[in-house]
């Protein structure tokens, strides 16, 4: 069978850590973005929509490079963060940010589909019963999009597990520090005799992603049933 080296184990646990953090941090923003896109009457809604979806169609390498430009020590955001002693690039936080940006559109899309299925009358009923818009958001919209949020989160989690292009540019490929599963596989494939090890990590990757997708499907199906 396959045997994993300590750095392999580090890559597996780092991958999980990055994916979980990226998903958890994105959730509230994803929820708010979906809310704005579905329920608000913002003038720049179409622009916001395209902006959120841009990372879905851009090559991840481009996303990574743009992030590097702004978060690097010369970049506007990077310089600001450096002043308060925070360094992002080539740390695991960079991997989190890369995953967040690339996975965000998937999260928003899922939540949005769930929110669009909520009957407008329920929202109107809640308002006429004395609820402010933020009260309605928490007491009606949030619970009724619960399953869509879970589905979106699992989708984003799976996407984060596989993030490669943006991560390698922004976080580098430092074993034990920023090397996630896909980056470790990449390393093995370019090392003579590393095929077996690469295959082992591929298997881990397949098992993880498959598990998440099965979970996601189950949640979406239960959600549809719940709506009917």
């Amino acid at each position, binding site marked *: 069978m396959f045997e994993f080296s300590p750095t392999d184990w580090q890559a597996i646990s780092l991958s999980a850590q990055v994916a979980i953090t990226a998903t958890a941090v994105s959730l509230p923003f994803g929820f708010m973005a979906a809310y704005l896109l579905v329920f608000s009457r913002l003038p720049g809604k179409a622009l916001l929509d395209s902006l959120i979806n841009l990372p879905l169609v851009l090559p991840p390498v481009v996303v990574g490079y743009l992030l590097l430009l702004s978060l690097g020590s010369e970049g506007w955001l990077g310089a600001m963060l450096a002043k308060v002693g925070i360094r992002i690039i080539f740390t695991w936080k960079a991997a989190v940010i890369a995953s967040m940006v690339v996975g965000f559109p998937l999260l928003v899309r899922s939540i949005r589909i769930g929110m669009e299925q909520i*009957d407008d*009358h*329920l929202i*109107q*009923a*809640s*308002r*006429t*019963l*004395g*609820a*402010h*818009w933020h*009260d309605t958001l928490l*007491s*009606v919209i949030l*619970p*009724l999009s619960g399953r869509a949020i879970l589905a979106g989160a699992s989708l984003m989690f799976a996407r984060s597990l596989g993030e490669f292009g943006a991560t390698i540019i922004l976080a580098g490929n430092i074993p034990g520090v920023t090397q996630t599963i896909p980056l470790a596989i990449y390393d093995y494939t370019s090392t003579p005799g590393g095929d077996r090890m690469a295959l082992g990590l591929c298997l881990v990757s397949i098992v993880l992603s498959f598990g998440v997708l099965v979970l996601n499907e189950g949640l979406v199906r239960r959600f549809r049933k*719940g709506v009917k």
Partner: protein
Amino acid sequence: MMKIDVSLSKRLGDFDWQARFSAEGGQLGVFGPSGSGKSTLMNLLAGLLKPDSGHIRLDGSPIFESASSINLPPEKRRIGVVFQHAHLFPHMGVRRNLLYGFRRTPANERRIDTNDLIEALNLGPLLDRGVKRLSGGERQRVALGRTLLACPRLILMDEPLTGLDEGLKYQIIPYLKQVFNRFEIPYIFISHSLNEMRLMTDRVLEFAQGEMTGEVSSELLARRGMGTGQGGYSNLMEMGRLREDDGLYIYRWGGQEICLSNGGDQDTGMFEIMSKDITLFKRHPEASSARNMLQCRVVKVFEAGNRIGVELDCHGQRLMSQVVGSAVRDLGLEPGSAIIAVIKASAFRRLY
């Protein structure tokens, strides 16, 4: 009691919606065919839709006024809404649905006691159920309770009975009347059904093609519809149950006994008899298969389309019959003449 003063206009797609009225009292009806703009009025009053211009004043204070840019959000207007479909929150049980508005109402505005209301609407057995396991009538009762418990200044009911089964819809009406009487909350009842309108209110605003066309009494509305409707005018008779006799039910209507074949168990009931089902005789027939022969006096004879309406006074109670032109001559029908109204026991329809 409410005092409402409305003057609004709103551009909706291809047509201009307009209404102007002021009313005082406990009940007001809004009548018109579907698509005539009735629901738009509800949405504008509740704050779910923003008018282009005009004003809404409720009990003297403005809740919308375009001139001074006052536009209270729905939660500040304290105008309750009962929708055509109950729209209960699917993620909450009956109890949480009922209390949703109550919890959001300031303590000093909570005039209705929850237990009182639960008893009045007979909601006790439903409290711990999920909303998906309620029948249509039960859902509508819960929705009504939910709106009432928010203790609004005014309740708008938008076709609250339309989604219910024919047999079921009238059974809700006694509940409606009872709770609105008991808790003294004024309401505006929106419907395209003439019978519902007459059972719920006397004063009616009429809508047609997105515009308010006038104010009439629900009685006048019914008489006007006599010439066009299939069965003519529908007489609504509230009667008290007396006894059962040989498979028939005997009810008291004013000072007389009425015999009908489909009575109920309750002490009082509301029955409908169509004007076409009331036959007029000049002299008392010796024997007839019809069970009811009522001594009446003609009050008024009037034309309604191609028929003639005959309003009768039956020992103080009003009854409307319809005949064709030649019958007026043959029977010599004119105000004051005595006549016998003959009604079959099976012609009555029990509404509730």
